[in-house]
């Protein structure tokens, strides 16, 4: 009973982080200015900064965080493995290779090409992982083909990175993308990311019970009347969509999908019907908070680096206290 009440905590954190991400930045704004600016009043500078710069960034950040955390919950349940993360089947590596190919070929000068190439790369690589694992159709095979594929895709990205090493500005853009970030997100990124992620999250929420059963093991779930094959493919598709979209608009952001589900499992218990919505909110909150940190800390710090800096030690601490 007591655990249920904890669900309000991620909601409050998300609200606070969202407000903070609207409030902090290079341009200092007071609270009344922020409220007025969002309504389109006040100085042109304030309105531009809030509506054109910060609001898209906050919306994209929230969607990305929610998507990665939800995808992490699904992967950990599906593979019954504490180390499972959204990128397990090669989704993020595929997205990275897609985006980096476009950047390296010099086609990254428009706003749409990089996100779309990332989405394409993510789906192609996940499809490959599924097809390659098909014969055995077990979770283990899927996991192994994911690992092999990840290595292959990462090698491809590393190859492109080394080929472009002589072109400092191109190399910079690629690294920028590989380390993830929410700087200069535009309405286009909101359009690519936000509605589809929201829809995938809504479709995922009713699958909480199925996730509970699947996480007991395939045979147990089967004997309890779950169509494991169907549920598993639904979950893989939704998880892929979420990670692909998140990566396509913000680059590779690690640790959110790994840490958030674990943390909330400690707070809320293993019931996925609560774990899913709570992880989505907490993932969004963590991503936004880390993004605010990149704005307040000295320049040049990337979001993917901050999430790892925050997530890594936290995770280790959690392991020690729980063991």
């Amino acid at each position, binding site marked *: 009973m007591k655990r249920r009440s904890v669900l309000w905590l991620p909601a409050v954190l998300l609200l606070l982080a969202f407000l903070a991400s609207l409030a902090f930045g*290079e*341009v200092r704004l007071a609270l009344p200015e922020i409220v007025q600016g969002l309504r389109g009043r006040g100085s042109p500078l304030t309105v*531009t900064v809030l509506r054109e710069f910060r609001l898209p960034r906050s919306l994209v950040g929230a969607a990305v965080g929610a998507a990665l955390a939800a995808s992490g919950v699904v992967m950990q349940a599906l593979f019954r493995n504490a180390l499972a993360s959204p990128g397990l089947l090669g989704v993020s590596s595929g997205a990275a290779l897609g985006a980096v190919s476009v950047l390296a070929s010099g086609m990254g000068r428009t706003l749409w090409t990089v996100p779309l190439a990332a989405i394409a790369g993510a789906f192609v690589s996940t499809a490959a992982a599924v097809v390659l694992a098909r014969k055995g159709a077990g979770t283990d095979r899927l996991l192994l083909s994911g690992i092999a594929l990840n290595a292959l895709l990462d090698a491809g990205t590393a190859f492109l990175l080394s080929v472009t090493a002589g*072109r400092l500005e191109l190399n910079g853009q690629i690294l920028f993308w590989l380390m993830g970030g929410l700087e200069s997100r535009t309405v286009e*990124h909101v359009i690519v990311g936000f509605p589809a992620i929201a829809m995938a999250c809504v479709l995922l929420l009713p699958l909480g019970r199925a996730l509970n059963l699947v996480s007991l093991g395939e045979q147990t779930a089967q004997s309890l009347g779950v169509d494991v094959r169907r549920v598993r493919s639904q979950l893989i598709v939704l998880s892929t969509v979420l990670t692909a979209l998140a990566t396509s608009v913000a680059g590779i952001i690690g640790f959110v999908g790994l840490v958030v589900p674990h943390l909330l499992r400690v707070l809320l218990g293993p019931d996925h019907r609560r774990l899913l919505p709570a992880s989505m909110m907490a993932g969004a909150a963590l991503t936004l908070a880390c993004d605010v940190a990149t704005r307040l800390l000295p320049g040049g710090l990337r979001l993917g680096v901050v999430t790892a800096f925050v997530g890594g030690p936290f995770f280790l601490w959690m392991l020690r206290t729980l063991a």
Partner: protein
Amino acid sequence: MRPSWTIVLCALLGSAAVHASPRRVVSQTVGTDELLLALADPGQIAALSRFARDPAFSVDAKQAAAYPKLERDDAESVIRFQPDLVLAASYTEPETLTLLRRAGVKLIVAEQFESLEDVYSNIRTLGAALGHSDRAGELIRTTRARVIDLARKLNGVKPVRIQDLCDHAGAINVAAEAGLVGHARTPDERLLTWNPEVLIASDNEGPDLVTRLRQVPAYKHLPALRAGRLVVLPGSLLASVTHYRVAAFEALARELHPERFR
């Protein structure tokens, strides 16, 4: 009465000119920093790029310290200075350019900086935008004169085979630009077969470069390195995309053909 009329007229024209030309210019790249410092009135400069004060990249690092600099490269960091003109380059993040355009800021994006003619064209464009076409013309004239002067000095010299060790990625191969015989960077066995007479490196590589290169198998047998024929030039000059490139040519020529500069 006549002189006073002239003064009034000048004052009127002057204020009109000031209003027409931008008064708060923000430069987003080191290349445009150097052009802006060369062409603008100090009062026109609102902020310079993130690396403007870094001597590894900027020739004008000291001069740039007198102006505010961008803390980050994103759109909000730029708009904080409420610019009426922003200078960027083709390698600026496309998202940042889009956001700045949507904010209604006038943008000049330098697209080409491969050749000296590209540099002159950039100088001309910026000069016109700043209301200082005269200064732009003067800068181009003096730069052209320096190139001609250099060519005259080097007239008939025996070409020196050089190897550009410039690991500073994206740097222009100064040798090829200067019309001397040069090679692209390939530190491997082929280097031995080329057998360059002089090696060129950037000072951004740090001190003791010769000692360190002597430990690299591909380099240690090179006669040029054994004899210590290594020319170290400022990295900011080697990577320059502005009129300072001519200074790089001069520095290199001075090292390769000292007899012509006596």
